[in-house]
């Protein structure tokens, strides 16, 4: 069957099970959008206000759905507007298919109108990318792209399709062979040394990252934890991997992690690290981090083992498979002494409850107002850390946060994609005046899509995280972090066609949220918080548990 390139694209998207895509039309994707018009009954296209919103939405959608998110943008500025979002997906290993139009092949390389070398631009931030110069290769390329994005360590794949390829015809057989190499060759799973190390350990600690969520290995981790009496610490990407309510889940460790988690990690004589990459934000000083302790590192990506921390034992493979094998070969070892010590660490975290309008109480109230399966997105900065510290995630794939890249402005797009992926159920975005300012234009999308999005804006009038560093390390020289914007956020929300409220107390917030539940369309709740609220605990960069600042 002869089809045009644009038709092949749509057919293959449908063939891959894609029913929702995010994007923004433009000159070099007109043919693709014409096919999308004709196929609106098969693929729903979500039009955003800016391509960056679209790519973050596709990212959020992918995180919730556990399958590739798809974004389409035109050539030139459309394509370059995707760059931050692609880098974000790359650093958080999110499967993403980015499709860009480009000028016709005869015009390539001539600095034609809206021409950029997006394959060159995105090369360091994609798992792979393609420019399709011949329509005959389009079907195979698309099929390969989905496999690459969604297997092994997942990640973004970009496909640049020149206009001439969109209009040319080729056979579409749905029967072409693809050539994607497997990452199996690198897999090493010598469990004996790992089993011995576990048998010798007196204070085992499990450190889980986003890889545990990708592998769907939550059950295996909890089984391991129970079998060994091992507490679990989480990286930021691993936050929703283990239910908050599991008693040995100590939460995030590292720079802004919980005290118990970092303390147990520092005290441990064995760290079983699964699906983490030992980011500098998580480890601080790496030699202190691993002092007097054996590290078993399990990861699907061989290059991660030994990249930031040199483990004594590296197990490369699918975490679920590795853990399943490991679990079948290790006996149960109750270790009350270690559990008692962990309990003591937890006791040290206890705080007196109060009813002040603080980030902790705001997030606590939001948490108790929404269902357990609610998707919660964040932007980047203090509010992100507070969300991670105080929100009690019970299910994986319900937190959408920019881990590796730390992208301010991620939240609006991600919340839109996450809300759509979660059946358009009520969705929360916890953001701040700084981050929200970056991509607030996506309010327009939340309104046009009638998404029940509750935007909780922690408004302190400053760029709080940077200000916190300026307070601690730059002698309170608040260079360019005091905003003085006078933005009326509730009014702004109403101007976009959303609802806007201001809350000054927990009682206000409770009323607003109560009234909002089960209503269509987005709303914004402006919560004024104290300018000097800090994220604590805090382990300074390059430091260790010894340097932790608790109050």
């Amino acid at each position, binding site marked *: 069957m002869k089809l045009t390139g644009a038709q092949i694209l749509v057919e293959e998207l449908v063939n891959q099970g894609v029913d929702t895509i995010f994007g923004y039309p433009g000159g070099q994707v007109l043919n693709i959008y014409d096919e999308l018009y004709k196929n609106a009954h098969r693929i729903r296209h979500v039009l955003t206000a800016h391509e960056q919103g679209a790519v973050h939405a596709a990212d959020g959608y992918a995180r919730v759905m556990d399958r590739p998110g798809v974004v389409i943008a035109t050539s030139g500025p459309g394509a370059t507007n995707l760059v931050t979002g692609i880098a974000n997906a790359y650093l958080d290993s999110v499967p993403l298919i980015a499709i860009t139009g480009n000028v016709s092949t005869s015009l390539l390389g001539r600095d034609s109108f809206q021409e950029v070398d997006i394959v060159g631009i995105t090369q360091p931030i994609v798992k792979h990318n393609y420019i399709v110069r011949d329509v005959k290769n389009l079907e195979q390329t698309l099929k390969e792209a989905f496999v690459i994005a969604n297997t092994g360590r997942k990640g973004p794949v970009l496909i640049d399709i020149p206009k001439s390829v969109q209009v040319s015809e080729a056979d579409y057989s749905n029967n072409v062979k693809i050539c994607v*190499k497997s990452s199996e060759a690198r897999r090493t799973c010598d469990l004996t040394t790992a089993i011995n190390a576990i048998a010798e350990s007196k204070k085992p600690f499990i450190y889980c990252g986003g890889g545990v969520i990708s592998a769907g290995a939550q059950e295996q981790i909890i089984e391991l934890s129970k079998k060994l009496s091992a507490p679990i610490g989480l990286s930021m990407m691993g936050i929703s991997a283990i239910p908050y309510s599991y008693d040995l889940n100590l939460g995030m460790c590292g720079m802004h992690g919980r005290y118990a988690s970092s303390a147990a990690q520092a005290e441990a004589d064995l760290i079983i690290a699964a699906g983490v990459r030992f980011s500098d934000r998580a480890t601080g000083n790496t030699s202190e981090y691993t002092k007097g302790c054996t590290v078993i590192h399990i990861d699907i990506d061989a290059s991660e083992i030994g990249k930031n921390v040199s483990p004594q034992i590296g197990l490369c493979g699918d975490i679920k498979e590795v853990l399943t094998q490991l679990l079948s070969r290790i006996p149960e070892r109750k270790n009350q002494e270690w559990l008692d010590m962990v309990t003591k660490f937890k006791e040290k975290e206890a705080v007196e409850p109060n009813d002040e309008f603080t980030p902790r109480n705001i997030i606590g109230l939001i948490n108790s107002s929404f269902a357990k399966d609610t998707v919660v997105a964040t932007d980047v900065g203090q509010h992100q850390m507070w969300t991670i510290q105080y929100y009690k995630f019970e299910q994986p794939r319900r937190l959408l946060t920019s881990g590796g890249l730390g992208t301010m402005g991620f939240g609006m797009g991600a919340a839109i994609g996450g809300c759509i992926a979660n059946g358009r159920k009520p969705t929360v975005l916890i953001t701040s005046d700084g981050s929200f300012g970056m991509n607030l234009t996506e309010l327009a999308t939340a309104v046009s899509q009638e998404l029940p999005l509750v935007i909780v804006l922690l408004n302190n009038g400053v760029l709080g995280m940077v200000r916190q560093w300026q307070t601690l390390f730059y002698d309170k020289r608040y260079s360019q972090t005091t905003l003085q914007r006078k933005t009326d956020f509730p009014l702004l929300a109403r101007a976009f066609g959303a609802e806007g409220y201001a809350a000054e107390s927990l009682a206000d917030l409770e009323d607003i949220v109560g009234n909002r539940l089960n209503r269509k369309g987005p709303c914004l709740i402006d919560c004024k918080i104290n300018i000097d609220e800090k994220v604590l605990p805090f382990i300074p960069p390059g430091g260790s548990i010894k340097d932790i600042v608790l109050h």
Partner: protein
Amino acid sequence: MIGKFTVSVIVSNHFGVLNRVSGLYAKRNYNIDSLAVGETENPAYSRITIVSTGDDYMKEQVVRQLEKLHDVKKVVLLDPENSVGVEHMLIKLKAEGEAKADISQLINDYGGSVMDFSSDFITAEITGSSKKIDSFIEAARPLGILELCRSGLIAMIQGTKNIMSVANLDPEE
């Protein structure tokens, strides 16, 4: 331990692949001392030989990161004890009057050949180990080098094995 090491990389023979490989080196902050590339016996593949300077950490990371590239089919870290390597150089030397005889002698001593000459210069081709080429350059320097061009090392594993059949070689193995 910091030292020079050589990796052989078999890649798909299409546009942009060299850029991906060299871009990976740049992005990961690895240096490239020399790089040579050309088609293999199978026109579907090209072979890239890259010489770098770095420690054991870098050696291991280079191989593992390269292996992740979709267009990279095989990466082998060459063991200097079990591989053969050669480099080519074209060198243009000032050759006026009596110097001419010295230069001809030097080229002869290194088993080189004269590719081009006139009354005031000689262009020679020298082939051999990188060390041999370094030593020729040092010997020729006093005579006056007009310009030179090195190919970068090309190298292979000793014995009958084809690179595609070699197991992945980690630095510690």
